[in-house]
């Protein structure tokens, strides 16, 4: 048994993690972040007119993905969309590969949460920063790019890291749309060897290892990005 753990179970679970869990989490998070930034900017924008429609869509999107369970979203995208038959565009419905369905759903879901994080971080920057930048003649877009976003993203590092760590674990839900990621592999072994406690504990350990490494990365990132913003722990100057 012990030999099998090290020769078969663990290597194959790690392999699935490297092949699916981690890449899917990373790609989804990057796409989600881009989406989150755009949505946050749209929602704080002061543009009126037709742009109000964009703001409305952004708010609706955030509401939709925060008010429905991630597992249900995965099911709709993977099992539901094949039945969305639109003559001319999708006559046979939208059939997606599980990896693609997973990435789309995870990106949209994490994008909704992260957009609120980024929006809050932007709003947390004191108005004095806007005013000082306006006073030297900067346009709103330049102020955002040069002054506000660099500071806001630093503020957002801890909550965004939190979202990423959450996402890594949430990828296990993709097991239910036939994706053979880490958790799915452990399920298969548990079905074969009737050792569910052992198999699920092993996979839990692997998730914990990944998330611990990510937590270390987070504190490193926090230290680097907030170097000049705060006087550091203990308020030493």
């Amino acid at each position: 048994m012990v030999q099998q753990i090290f020769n078969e179970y663990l290597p194959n679970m790690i392999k699935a993690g490297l092949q699916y869990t981690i890449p899917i989490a990373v790609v989804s998070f990057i796409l989600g972040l881009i989406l989150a930034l755009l949505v946050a900017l749209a929602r704080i924008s002061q543009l009126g007119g037709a742009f109000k429609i964009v703001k409305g869509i952004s708010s609706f999107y955030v509401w939709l993905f925060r008010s429905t369970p991630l597992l249900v979203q995965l099911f709709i995208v993977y099992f539901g969309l094949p039945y969305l038959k639109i003559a001319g565009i999708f006559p046979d419905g939208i059939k997606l590969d599980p990896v693609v369905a997973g990435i789309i759903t995870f990106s949209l879901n994490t994008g909704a949460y992260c957009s609120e994080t980024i929006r809050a971080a932007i709003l947390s920057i004191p108005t004095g920063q806007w005013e000082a930048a306006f006073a030297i003649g900067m346009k709103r877009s330049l102020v955002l790019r040069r002054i506000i976003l660099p500071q806001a993203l630093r503020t957002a590092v801890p909550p965004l890291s939190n979202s990423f760590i959450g996402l890594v674990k949430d990828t296990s839900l993709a097991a239910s749309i036939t994706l053979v990621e880490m958790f799915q592999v452990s399920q298969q072994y548990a079905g074969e060897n009737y050792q569910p406690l052992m198999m699920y504990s092993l996979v839990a350990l692997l998730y914990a290892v990944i998330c611990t490494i990510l937590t270390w990365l987070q504190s490193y990132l926090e230290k680097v990005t907030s170097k000049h913003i705060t006087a550091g722990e203990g308020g030493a100057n």
Partner: protein
Amino acid sequence: MLKLSHVNKTFGETPVLKDLSTEFPEQQTTVVLGPSGSGKSTMLRSLNLLERPESGIYDCDDLQIDFAKPITSKTTLEVRQRTEMVFQSFNLFPHFSVLQNVIEGPVHVLHQSKDAATKEALTLLDSVGLLDKADAYPVELSGGQSQRVAIARSLAMHPQYILLDEPTSALDPELELEVLKVLLAIHDQNQSMIIVTHNMAFAQRVANKILFIENGDALYDGPTDGFFHSTNDRIKSFIDSMTFSI
């Protein structure tokens, strides 16, 4: 020359500026005095268009702005290039070094080359006594040093006017003196300045003109001597209340 005519501004239901008219002569220092909440800061911020009065005319040199009409972003940017603001709370950019704070406007707004902007910024930092802090970050500076950097940052834009909104109110007396000395030196170079302050001794020393605002209107608008020797009861009691005497 900056000139305000019949400017009105309300915050909600409260009138802050009431039909205020005044002008700020070039190459001179105008000091704006008045009790807290009189509308001094609002007036100053209106000159930089950080505040938007509901009505009145603002002449910024050859540019005329009617506050009752929409202001184009082009006009706003032009006004802001002619007037620079120095804030009570400094508002330095914390993620930039001192030098980067000073060259940010010249490089990204005036599109100067980084080398030229850096060269000038170092001269300016030298003139405010902070050449050795060029690579420091705002978090490492004292309040007085921060405000001197903010002054250098505004000078780097070559504004016609520097607007200072209670520049030393957040500082203790020793640090205040540092900043006032720098302002005096700038005054001596005939830089046009408008300073909102509570420091009466400094006002008397530096002002070519005093504007005393109370309840959103100019109660006194004229030469410095005339203000400090005024026979007006309200002005006399204001000066008394601001001067320490037992």
